[in-house]
């Protein structure tokens, strides 16, 4: 191939090539150091997590055979040959799955209201007292750092078994996560309307109601919908610790090796979660469209 680029003379070129090589070697050395660090961390954590590649290699067959057993009825036939037998507990599971959805719904709304109430005093442009702001922010941080299932464990001890501890646990976690997002939204508003309301003598509450809320509402609802998707997923396992929903039956079925029941419930969960994701994504796109015009 003929070369179209005209190269400078060798004497001029040599230092440039030297510089280039130096720069590349330095970069390569950094990369190598990073890789070595990652490799060491990997080794240490592999020892820490008791990784046994040999066991995995020997038992990887279990993984495929587990899914094979999931798709078999007690009679040994494939599950789809007898859907009635497969979904024998449809009524009960639907009720439990409905309960899971209700838990997620109630918890999302409760948590969103909590986050909305907390967002104004936590944002820099609406709350001038730094100590109040810091206190609210620390509270929100605590709510979102403790995993919801830990809250659920403690609440089950306090409120007894059932949906109530699950709702409270998910709601508190939602307040923490949404509170942070809501605060960020509120901090990015246009302050003009707020000053307008303030200049006509409006109180702090009036400022929040008439100048802040109209600006942020559609954004907040969109975040709450996104959180609802996540909470539906989270609520399916909250029953593992006795806090209501389909998780109760799922963990019993997995522990007691009722294979076809496990696959039936998993299928119901996956379909429900996907449906809700799709609907909520549509709604969020419409909300964003509303926002933009």
């Amino acid at each position, binding site marked *: 191939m003929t070369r179209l680029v005209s190269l400078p003379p060798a004497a001029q070129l040599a230092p440039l090539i030297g510089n280039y090589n130096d720069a590349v070697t330095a970069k390569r050395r950094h990369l190598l150091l990073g890789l070595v660090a990652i490799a060491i961390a990997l080794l240490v954590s592999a020892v820490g997590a008791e990784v046994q590649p040999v066991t995995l290699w020997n038992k990887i067959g279990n993984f495929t055979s587990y899914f094979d057993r999931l798709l078999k009825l007690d009679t040994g036939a494939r599950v789809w040959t007898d859907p009635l037998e497969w979904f024998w507990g449809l009524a009960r599971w639907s009720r439990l799955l409905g309960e899971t959805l209700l838990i997620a719904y109630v918890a999302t709304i409760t948590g969103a209201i909590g986050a909305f109430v907390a967002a104004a005093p936590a944002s820099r442009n609406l709350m001038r007292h730094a100590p109040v702001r810091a206190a609210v922010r620390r509270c929100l941080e605590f709510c979102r750092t403790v995993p919801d299932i830990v809250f659920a464990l403690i609440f089950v001890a306090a409120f007894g078994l059932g949906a109530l501890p699950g709702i409270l646990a998910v709601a508190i976690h939602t307040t923490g996560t949404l509170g942070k997002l809501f605060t960020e939204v509120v901090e990015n508003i246009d302050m003009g309307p707020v000053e307008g309301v303030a200049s006509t003598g409006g109180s702090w509450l009036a400022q929040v109601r008439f100048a802040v809320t109209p600006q942020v509402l559609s954004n907040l609802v969109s975040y709450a919908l996104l959180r609802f998707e996540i909470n539906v997923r*989270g609520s399916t396992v909250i029953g593992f610790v006795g806090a209501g929903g389909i998780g109760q039956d799922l963990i019993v079925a997995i522990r007691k090796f009722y294979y076809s029941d496990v696959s039936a419930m998993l299928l119901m969960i996956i379909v429900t979660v996907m449906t809700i994701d799709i609907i909520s994504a549509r709604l969020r796109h419409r909300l964003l469209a509303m926002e933009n015009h």
Partner: protein
Amino acid sequence: MQGTELCARDPDVLRGGLRQQIPLLALGIAAAGVYFAALLTLDISPSRIISGLGRLADIAILMLPPNPESWARVLLYLGALGQTLAIAFLGTLLGAIFGCPFGFLAARNVVANRMIHFFSRRSLDTVRSVDTLIWALIWINVVGLGPFAGALAIMSSDLGAYGKLFSEAIEAADRKPVDGVLSAGGSRLHAIRFGMLPQVLPVFASQVLYFFESNTRSATIIGIVGAGGIGLQLFEQIRVLEWQQVSFLILMVLITVAAIDWTSQRLRSAIIGQRP
């Protein structure tokens, strides 16, 4: 001029808003209706909440001050915490390594075939809709109880999310550097290595770090189903109602998560550059 006079003069401008608000209002009322119906269905009464709050206050008092009782326990908990971090790190890294090929498969500008694109997206969605704890239960059946099952569970549930995020990063990559390499006579492999990778690698790295943060949280609870880490200790202590130990464990988790968040935020802004 008074408000009523203004309304009488320009009814279209001032009253029009109300008519637009009716569907929104109806939606709000419907949402509230479902909310209260749900409370009734789930049998949640104020009296239950109040009596429960009383017991919760008792528990909160019992939790203070956090007290591990002996140094042997502290060492045990620190070991469990280390295991949790190891699970999170291993799960994150394995998930990222195995998620990469799926990301490329699901990216519209790499694989043009619509069928492959559709099926890889849907299977990633399926993997994603199963919670980490369920994956942990499945992996326990394969490799037995212990932290290894936990790491594998985190890897599996991350695969779906990584595939989706990576494919989005690849689709958002600028086409021009790739074209530039191709027009200078580079091969297709050169185009990916010098045109595509430098664009997407920082995004990948920042997402992996972000997942490490969130996986540390997941890894703290994965012990609840028997997959190792500090969750196992937490679950045991709650079960035997040793509340001072519980609050000590929660405190340890809080400090660790905060430390990891801080470090990872530093690293992320170093990798991707400070945002204005």
